[in-house]
């Protein structure tokens, strides 16, 4: 890869939160400004958008973006949505200055990195100095965590993203595993209330 950028959705300001040097930031800026490009499509659809040869993309797909990206020397783009189910945390866009598909292993690496970036973005909102995404908690995600997220969203009248953040923040403050708190919520041993942390 020539570069990678991670950005949050337009609804949260569309900022690039992490990028490598080079044209990645400029590329992200272009997509955000124009509202078109692989990253925009991946964020909207929740699906991978892999364009191993940007020069071969039909011009009507991203009429303004594609020529501008080619001008920057970008030849291939790979966009991965950073989603946890219905929660949209951001998008990761990798680009390369030569056309060609990724080898299978590279795509897997990119998806693993995307998973870590998703955790990091969500964790950064929960506060606390600990890099939560390194704690290995992500791989312990269970169905109950997602069910509890849905229940808490109704209890607090908030979106899924905030519900998950509140669930994690509560577990963190009580020094309990997220899955354990989630199990309590699903079993209705515990409820979240407004103005309660």
């Amino acid at each position: 890869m020539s570069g990678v950028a991670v950005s949050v959705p337009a609804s949260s300001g569309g900022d690039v939160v992490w990028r490598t040097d080079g044209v990645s930031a400029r590329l992200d800026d272009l997509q955000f400004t124009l509202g078109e490009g692989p990253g925009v499509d991946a964020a909207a659809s929740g699906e991978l958008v892999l364009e191993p040869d940007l020069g071969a993309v039909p011009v009507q797909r991203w009429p303004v973006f594609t020529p501008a990206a080619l001008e920057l020397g970008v030849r291939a783009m790979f966009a991965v949505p950073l989603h946890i189910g219905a929660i949209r945390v951001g998008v990761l866009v990798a680009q390369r200055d030569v056309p060609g598909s990724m080898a299978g292993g590279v795509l897997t690496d990119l998806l693993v990195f995307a998973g870590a970036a998703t955790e990091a973005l969500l964790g950064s909102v929960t506060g606390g100095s600990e890099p939560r995404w390194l704690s290995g908690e992500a791989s312990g995600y269970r169905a109950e965590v997602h069910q509890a997220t849905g229940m808490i969203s109704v209890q607090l009248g908030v979106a899924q993203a905030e519900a998950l953040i509140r669930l994690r923040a509560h577990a963190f403050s009580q020094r309990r595993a997220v899955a354990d708190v989630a199990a309590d919520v699903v079993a209705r041993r515990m409820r979240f209330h407004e103005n309660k942390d």
Partner: protein
Amino acid sequence: MDRERHLAETFVQLADTLVDDFDVIDFLQVLAVRCVELLDVAAAGIVLADQSGSLRTVAASDERARLLELFEVQNDEGPCRDCYQFGAAVVNVDLDAARERWPQFAPKAIAEEFRSANALPLRLRSQVIGSLNLFHADGGLDNAELRTAQALADAATIGILQQRTIRRGEVVAGQLQAALTSRIIIEQAKGVLAERLRISTDDAFGVLRAAARSRNRLLSDLAREVADGSADAAQLVLPPAVELSGPG
């Protein structure tokens, strides 16, 4: 109905499903239920490996949390883990005799009154992307049933690879990720429904699926709307709204 006819009808039904825009989780759930009927097993479930090699449940013959837990624990150990790791079927393992092999999984499965287990690989050429897990209350699979089970596992693989998310034919990893994301959305929606309707998360799946069917919607699409609040959960237990148009 005799087994051959039932089997034939199952594959016709699955093939029909694949023709149009279809929902992968719904497809896999139907397949899991058919496994129970065709193979005379007590329960069936399908797990997929994510990009880190963690096994995630995507569908089960029923949505009892205690059954789902039996698939989840196999992220660490159990027939699915062995099947995925070694790329080979795990056949007719007696659970009582497997207490040492799977110290966490075996007692949990036995507590659910399962006696033996099978796991068939979801194969894509040389790659294994997940497994079909079958639990038996007694007995196991004979050779003919094993072939049927593997055919159903292969049908599951085909379904996963046929999702509408295919943009370019090269990204299995993307297909797996899409199926796993759909499953997470369904869990989030189950939580919303459980809280709004005061029902258990076990029952919420049935409500969601019945609502999708009666409205002719894809399960994942409706689940997403429930999860993000754009569909009113309370309306889902009512019959679909009738179009009030035309004369009269």
